[in-house]
């Protein structure tokens, strides 16, 4: 029991520290521009929380998180575009490039702020539930699942691009002016958006932490490591995976929704195969199975992309590629595993133990 108290105390301290960092230190140290970028990184971190759950814990390599990010983002952006245009008017791009004289029927519900807000999370979750129930019931997994989800991301992006008159096509929805009545070009409001994003991220981490430490979380790991045996025990692995997939989709949707006011644009460029892989890579570099690792990895990779491309605009992709290769090929557990490695080294030195295996198998004691 002591151990457990220690753990929750550590968690509480971690949360307090993270909150202090996000709410006090960052806003004080960073310029408005850098804080805006941090808001953007935190959005990718939210997606990473979901990926940590679905992939790190559930073994589902979801290479299609762009779809859910996009659904959330478009749901939010559609509402904000309608609000910008004002009652009775069409959003600017529809006036320029569209053929319709009134809002398409599937845009209309998004005029309602509550519907739009709910849709940012529930729509991706519903889509994930439908897709997932088919895919998992048929036991599509591993590489098949990864490539299937990539194909879905590609199909969704191509479809959006093809519907220029109603979705803005390649341009996406741009030039978003206000966020529920607040003008987005005001730095004070941009800061508010940042705080909302930071709070949402902490909330998602807390939520994911509860899930991971619940009975369900253990079952999820068991499914990842030996699906057949879990099935023999009488559980239905399809349902276990489905829950992780749907929760991850909801998190990606919320991230997409908050990305819109932070960056002011959502476009198919955030949905296709490339961004979907980038979401996963952040989590993988940090440590896919560790929430903290995944979140820090996502923020770190996004930050590195900005910093490297500012410093070496012509050659930064070399460094980016190298970062992925080194982190993934030589540190399979991500940077988070370094922490564990160091801790174990220290422990084994302290107890003068013989055992110095670099990676301790999870079930070694059994």
């Amino acid at each position, binding site marked *: 029991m002591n151990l*457990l108290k220690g753990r*929750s105390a550590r*968690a509480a301290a971690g949360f307090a520290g993270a909150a202090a960092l996000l*709410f006090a230190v960052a806003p004080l140290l960073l*310029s408005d*521009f850098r804080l805006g970028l941090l808001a953007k990184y935190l959005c990718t971190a939210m997606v990473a929380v979901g990926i940590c759950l679905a992939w*790190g814990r559930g073994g589902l390599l979801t290479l299609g998180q762009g779809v859910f990010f996009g659904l959330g983002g478009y749901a939010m952006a559609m509402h904000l575009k309608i609000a910008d245009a004002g009652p009775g008017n069409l959003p600017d791009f529809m006036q*320029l*490039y569209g053929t319709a004289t009134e809002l398409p029927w599937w845009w209309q519900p998004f005029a309602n702020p509550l519907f739009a807000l709910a849709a940012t999370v529930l729509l991706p979750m519903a889509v994930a539930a439908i897709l997932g129930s088919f895919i998992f019931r048929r036991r599509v997994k591993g590489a098949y699942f990864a490539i299937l989800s990539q194909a879905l991301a590609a199909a969704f992006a191509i479809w959006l*691009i*093809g519907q*220029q008159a109603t979705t803005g096509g*390649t341009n*996406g929805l741009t*030039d978003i*002016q*206000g966020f529920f*009545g*607040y*003008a987005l*070009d*005001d730095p004070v409001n941009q800061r*508010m958006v940042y705080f*909302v994003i930071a*709070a949402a991220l902490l909330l998602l981490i*807390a939520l994911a*932490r509860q899930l991971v430490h619940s*009975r369900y*979380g*253990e*079952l999820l*790991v*068991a499914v990842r*490591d*030996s699906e057949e*045996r879990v099935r023999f*025990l*009488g*559980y239905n692995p399809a349902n276990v995976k489905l829950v992780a997939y749907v929760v991850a989709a909801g998190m990606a949707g919320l991230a997409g929704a908050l990305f819109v006011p932070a*960056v*002011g*644009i959502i*476009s198919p460029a*955030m949905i296709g195969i490339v961004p979907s892989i980038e979401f996963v890579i952040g989590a993988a570099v940090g*440590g896919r199975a560790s929430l*903290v*690792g995944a979140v820090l990895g996502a923020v770190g990779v996004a930050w590195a992309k900005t910093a490297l*491309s*500012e410093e070496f*605009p*012509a050659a930064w992709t070399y460094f980016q590629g190298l970062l992925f290769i080194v982190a993934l090929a030589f540190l399979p*557990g991500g940077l988070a*595993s370094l*922490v*564990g490695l160091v801790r174990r080294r220290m422990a084994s030195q302290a107890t003068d133990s013989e055992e110095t295996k670099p990676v301790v*198998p*999870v*079930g070694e*004691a*059994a």
Partner: protein
Amino acid sequence: MDRTSGTSRYTIIGKLDARATTAPEGLLIPSHSVVLRDKGVLLSSVPSIHRRRFLAGTAAVTAVVALSACGAKTDSASSSDKAAKIDVSGDTVKVGLLNSLSGTMAISEVTVRNSLMLAIDEINASGGVLGKKVKPISEDGASDWPTFAEKASKLIKEDAVAATFGCWTSASRKAVKPVFEKNKSLLFYPVQYEGLEESPYIFYTGATTNQQIIPGLDYLKSQGKKKLYLVGSDYVFPRTANKEIRAYAKANGMTILGEDYAPLGSTEFSTIANKVKASKADAVFNTLNGDSNVAFFKEYKSAGLTAKTMPVVSVSIAEEEVKSIGPQYLADQLTAWNYYQTTEGAANEKFVKAYKAKYGQDKPTSDPMEAAYTSVYLWKAMVEKAKSFDPEKVKAASDGITFDAPEGEVTVDGASQHLYKTARIGKIGSDGLIEEVWNSGKPIKPDPYLKGYDWASGLS
């Protein structure tokens, strides 16, 4: 998830790990190895009070922050008036170069960047602007629109640039437009585009539709081509251009036999070539972008279609693209632009010579490159007329500025911030160069909304 058997719990544990390199070791999450071994006990002991405290705490912080931060509302007119600061201390002035150096658009945008650098070097060699050397800050848009927006704000807010040059696709321009407008900073956009836009903070130095597409159609009409087939990439420029072409055709007794779009980057054109061939059109109007042109023309030739039987007028194929497709596939096809490497005049001779000296004798010059080169000189002329780098003063000084550009004389139309440009129809030769076969005689007044054309009244 009803559990029906609890006996073989240890079997699971035995299997766990195999590749458990993924064992979680984060700050907040302890290893689950213990957890699995003793499910029940551990579960009951995760204290729920702590949980609630985290959540409540977070929620409280959010609420406080949200309440304390109340910025301007959208409906309040006093949307804070904050022009971007420009760093003019010291003996240099910074300008931003925003082009894709990686990703799919790099094939086109790198050449634009090269010619921007050439213009800046020339200006610095002749003493700079208002006595200050121009210092280019280069950023990679990475062919990704949100990245363009991010880099644009970085250039304006962190580097305090006096002006930014670049962007290629309409999507990237749409993404950065609000950034430049909100920060009241200037963008010079060097590529022909679909019109229907007049941002107060963008200078458009490429052609708008009435300086490129409409002259192209006029030329086809004068050649007696009555039946057209439209092929384009699936994005805003081709779709808008084709809408205008349909309206033009209707008013001028031409018929459109078909209209096909391929996703950007698509390289499979056999079906579209079949459709075009089966239509027996008089000519094809091609608004494909980038890579797709290569595949399209290879397929076009394979289908047995030639410039003689069915000429193609392209509005996105310049010398650089001719070089990458190969003149063997393009011989005698038509293009519509405002500039060719072969355009006559001393200014162009100088430009071509300087470009080749800097980047290699085998490197061609093209319309977007010329428009980019010209844009830097126009900015210089505006700044010198305004005697200030302040965007508002530069804008005010812009009307009527002329420059003896490689394409011939261009004049800034202050009202629309577009240029008066001469339209030129060219024919692609077997040497890969484009020879002019027709020009508009004098620079055409820019008309981005096509207000001067009756048939275009219902378009926007």
